[in-house]
């Protein structure tokens, strides 16, 4: 298998995984208007839990320390990763989703994310601290026994399988009365509440479902890379997914696909080919963020609602035969 195929397959895998991540944030923010500034924490939760439930018991002497070590077969670790992230989303949502204040939510999520980050980094017994997990088994490779290059191509099917299912979930949710009410909550939570909507519960659902998406994305990521450490989920990684969502267009699932293609496959990849500057290891990630940030500013300047804005919902009009009564409706009945 040629290096080019391997290279393209790698990008496709990232592209698929970031589609899932962007859809999850789209559900939280694009549908329900939840300012989740620690989205990446849910991705990390999925990655860690999938990691420690697919790894076997820790080996003494390797120096890698972690909890669980259940050595569960595919697809259980990935699902557990999603569920663990959803559970964390539920807990954070219960604390932070106050029906009156959305800026409050932003601050709480940001703080909780930073606290969890240093917790995971410093409590080395959980997920081996800042060193992170390594040697995570490749999903299904115990069965298919593929070499590195072929497995990378094979993994497109694994990631694509989850992507297809989650697409259906996100799409149905968006088109459902529940998704419509989520969007109304996004537009004006007080009015939605005044119309009998339990806005707290509905936003909690958006939080939990979005976190589940993040967890599945994280689980697929650790299965693909085989390793995961706090470097992979610093606060700036949350910004990348926000950039994907806003560039693509919130409330539009194809927008998220376009956004992750542009950000992951183009902008982010392109910075790899810039001439490297010796003795400056931080420059490449910094350049990546600058390029993505610039792209975001350009898009928001010319298309404030994203390249593919939310689509207008239309409905089949099955009505009683009478056409609109232009004259009658200007003169409603008056009291005699």
């Amino acid at each position: 298998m040629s290096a080019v195929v391997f290279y393209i397959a790698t990008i496709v895998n990232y592209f698929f995984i970031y589609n899932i991540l962007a859809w999850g944030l789209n559900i939280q923010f694009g549908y329900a208007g939840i300012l989740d500034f620690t989205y990446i924490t849910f991705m990390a939760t999925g990655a860690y839990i999938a990691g420690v439930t697919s790894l076997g018991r820790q080996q003494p002497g390797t120096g890698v320390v972690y909890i669980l070590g259940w050595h569960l077969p595919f697809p259980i670790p990935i699902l557990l990763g999603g569920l663990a992230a959803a559970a964390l989303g539920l807990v954070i949502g219960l604390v932070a989703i106050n029906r009156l204040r959305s800026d409050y939510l932003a601050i709480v999520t940001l703080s909780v994310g930073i606290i969890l980050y240093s917790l995971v980094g410093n409590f080395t017994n959980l997920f081996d601290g800042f060193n992170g997990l390594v040697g995570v088994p490749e999903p299904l490779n115990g069965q298919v026994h593929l070499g590195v290059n072929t497995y990378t191509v094979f993994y497109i099917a694994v990631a694509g399988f989850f992507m297809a299912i989650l697409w259906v979930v996100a799409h149905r949710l968006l088109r459902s009365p529940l998704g419509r009410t989520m969007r109304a909550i996004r537009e004006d939570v007080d009015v939605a509440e005044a119309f009998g909507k339990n806005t707290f519960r509905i936003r909690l659902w958006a939080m939990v479902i979005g976190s589940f998406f993040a967890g599945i994305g994280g689980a697929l990521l650790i299965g693909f890379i085989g390793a995961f450490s706090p470097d992979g989920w610093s606060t700036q990684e949350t910004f990348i997914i926000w950039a994907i969502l806003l560039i693509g267009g919130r409330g539009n699932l194809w927008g998220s696909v376009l956004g992750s293609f542009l950000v992951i496959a183009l902008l982010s990849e392109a910075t790899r080919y810039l001439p490297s500057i010796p003795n400056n290891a931080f420059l490449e990630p910094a350049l990546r963020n600058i390029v993505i940030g610039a792209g975001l500013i350009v898009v928001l300047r010319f298309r404030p609602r994203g390249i593919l804005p939310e689509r207008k919902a239309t409905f089949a009009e099955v009505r009683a035969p009478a056409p609109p009564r232009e004259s009658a409706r200007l003169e409603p009945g008056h009291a005699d």
Partner: protein
Amino acid sequence: MPTDAPILEIDNLSRRFGGLQAVDDCSFSIQEGMLAALIGPNGAGKTTLVNLVAGALSPNSGHVRFGGLDITGWSPHRIAARGLVRTFQISREWAQLTVLENLLVAAPDQRGEGIWNAIVRPSVGRAQDRELVAQALDSLDAFGLYAMRNEYAATLSGGQKRLLELARAVMARPRLLLLDEPMAGVNPALTDQLAGHIEQLRRGGITFLLVEHNLEFVEKSCDHVVVMALGRTLATGVMGDLRRNPEVIGAYLGGESVASAAG
């Protein structure tokens, strides 16, 4: 027609904002079937009272009963689900939803709002939507908004937004509609149109309590008026009598406006 049991009872309701007593030991009741008005000068506490009744604010003391049920301290969505629906003094449409969607969201008891039906059984929501769409289109037709049905609500004119507020509130199938200045800032033709809709809906069985400054409309159409001033209930009755009430004249109406509005 009014029956004996009041649909809404306000009992010694009070609400403070810091040092300001916005609603001060206020009591009155509204009978089922009434078209009632709540009037009073700016700052009298009318909007605060609406917020207290609808659950958007909780009172410092006192009680609110709706249909015989003590709803004091309930969350707004629980109160609304019981059939007490309110509108806002400033139009608050869901801007990036279409006009039709604004009505659809307002409908109560939507089975497609359940998470299971939304994701696993989308046909349930679609089936109910077909009925709701038909109902909403008829309503938009009656309110003169049919042509705008697929436009974002944000694009409506100020007057159209007022109509949308009312159409949307009706979609919620309320028992009691609490309207906070439904005619504020609209032209006379639209005022008449809104008045016609309100009277028609009242004949259809909805009880109204509306905050209104248009005394001509209040006099002509409302069969019960509550006057508030400085957070208190100053007087209740019909507009014709209230005009001759010296307390009401002193606190609110003023000689000139009584004369002009009565003429």
